């Protein structure tokens, strides 16, 4: 890292920490009431974090995936719902940056994201399809310069708060289910009729209600590349890495709480090692595994970034799938260990060591594109793809 990029990263970290402080002070209320983390999102806008990924020549800061992952983790340590909202927004921005920057409409849209700090939502999940993102039932209808789309979208996080929603669909009425496109619809170009309430165990503040989406927009708002390529070359890697960064943040805060608990006990009884200390050492190793996993994926993504063939390779897809599977599983083990360390003080709400919210939020990770689905996908690829056994890459 050269000096200028180090200063930029430091600055991003400082800004993220200021947002995290605000997010943390509302996290319990956001969770209890299942409400949108509006204070945290307003703070992200004030710190201009929503546009950081937009290239500098379009008014953003050209932040790297690693920098965005760090912001996700910092926010994840304070309010998982706000952090997940930030990460989902950045995943959508990455699709436009990677696959729309040559198209005039999308270039102008990127400028607006940075300039007006627009919040982007996502509608890939569909009734009858579930998390099988690479298939759609609904089809976009292109009629001259206009496109129309109706989608029974069972989960759209912060759908009502978003300034734009990126929606996947089949590319035309006769297209095969996997022949998909993704279209940007701006607020005002669509209506949302609520079909499902998001009253969940955790991640309550993402307000991921279900909606019947009906949109009409200029056809040039359809991203110019097939969604298959967008998914393979940028979206899957960004999603699995940035989600994992949020999950790492949740687990890291749980470990911090457990550590404070052990430390407080050690202070009360100098000379004796508190009973939780051994488990703390164990959990520190597990947290390091999640961190290594995310950092390795960031390195692999960086190395493959400008090589479409590498990005679309099975080797890369299996590696990135593995990151999602293992981080989503490990965080549950980690938080559970922390609960064992803190005991009732961790189980209770409203103590400095409370872990209920962390545990509930963390349970969404395995379902956010079901791990079973991802494993099934990897298992197909592993019928032909050899396991990567090199330590050099």
């Amino acid at each position: 890292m050269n000096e200028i990029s180090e200063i930029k990263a430091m600055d991003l970290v400082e800004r993220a920490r200021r947002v995290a402080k605000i997010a943390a002070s509302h996290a319990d209320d956001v969770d209890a009431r299942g409400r949108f983390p509006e204070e945290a999102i307003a703070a992200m806008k004030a710190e201009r974090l929503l546009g950081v990924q937009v290239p500098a020549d379009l008014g953003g800061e050209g932040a790297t995936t690693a920098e965005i992952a760090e912001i996700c983790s910092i926010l994840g340590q304070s309010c998982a719902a706000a952090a997940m909202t930030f990460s989902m927004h950045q995943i959508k921005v990455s699709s436009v940056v990677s696959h729309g920057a040559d198209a005039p409409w999308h270039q102008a849209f990127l400028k607006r994201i940075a300039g007006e700090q627009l919040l982007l939502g996502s509608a890939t999940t569909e009734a009858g399809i579930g998390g099988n993102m690479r298939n759609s039932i609904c089809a976009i209808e292109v009629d001259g310069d206009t496109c129309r789309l109706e989608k029974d979208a069972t989960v759209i996080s912060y759908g009502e708060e978003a300034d734009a929603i990126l929606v996947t669909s089949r590319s035309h009425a006769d297209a095969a289910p996997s022949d998909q496109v993704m279209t940007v619809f701006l607020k005002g170009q669509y209506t949302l009729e609520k079909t499902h309430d998001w009253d969940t165990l955790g991640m309550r503040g993402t307000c991921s209600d279900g909606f019947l989406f009906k949109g009409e927009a200029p056809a040039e708002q359809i991203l110019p590349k097939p969604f298959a390529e967008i998914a393979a070359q940028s979206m899957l890697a960004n999603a699995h890495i940035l989600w994992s960064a949020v999950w790492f943040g949740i687990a890291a805060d749980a470990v911090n709480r457990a550590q404070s608990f052990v430390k407080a006990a050690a202070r009360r009884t100098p000379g004796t090692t508190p009973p939780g200390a051994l488990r703390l050492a164990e959990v520190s190793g597990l947290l390091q595994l999640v961190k290594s996993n995310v950092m390795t994926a960031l390195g692999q993504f960086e190395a493959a970034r400008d090589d479409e063939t590498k990005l679309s390779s099975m080797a890369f897809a299996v590696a990135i799938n593995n990151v999602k599977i293992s981080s989503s599983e490990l965080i549950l083990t980690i938080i559970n260990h922390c609960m064992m360390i803190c005991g009732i003080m961790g189980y209770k709400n409203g103590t400095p060591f409370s872990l209920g919210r962390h545990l509930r939020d963390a349970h969404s990770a395995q379902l956010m594109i079901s791990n079973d689905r991802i494993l099934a996908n990897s298992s197909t690829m592993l019928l032909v793809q050899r396991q990567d056994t090199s330590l050099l890459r």
Partner: protein
Amino acid sequence: MNATIRELLAEHGSLPVSVETLANDADLYEAGLSSFASVQVMLALEEHFDIEFPDTMLNRKSFATIAAITACVATLCGDQEAAQ
């Protein structure tokens, strides 16, 4: 070789359209080839031609068209003419 590949594609590709209607350079993903089915076709090709696809060929491009598949298989079989 092309005819055999078309046969195996018809048998294992689970395509919603008939393989005869597809030109050699038609996009198979657009025609409905799923990633699951593409792996089934790969396995059938490996078995039939007694080859093994190296990691460098395990990407979307290698399987995007009948022509691309033919080129990969020909390279692995050492058939220089068909690989062109």
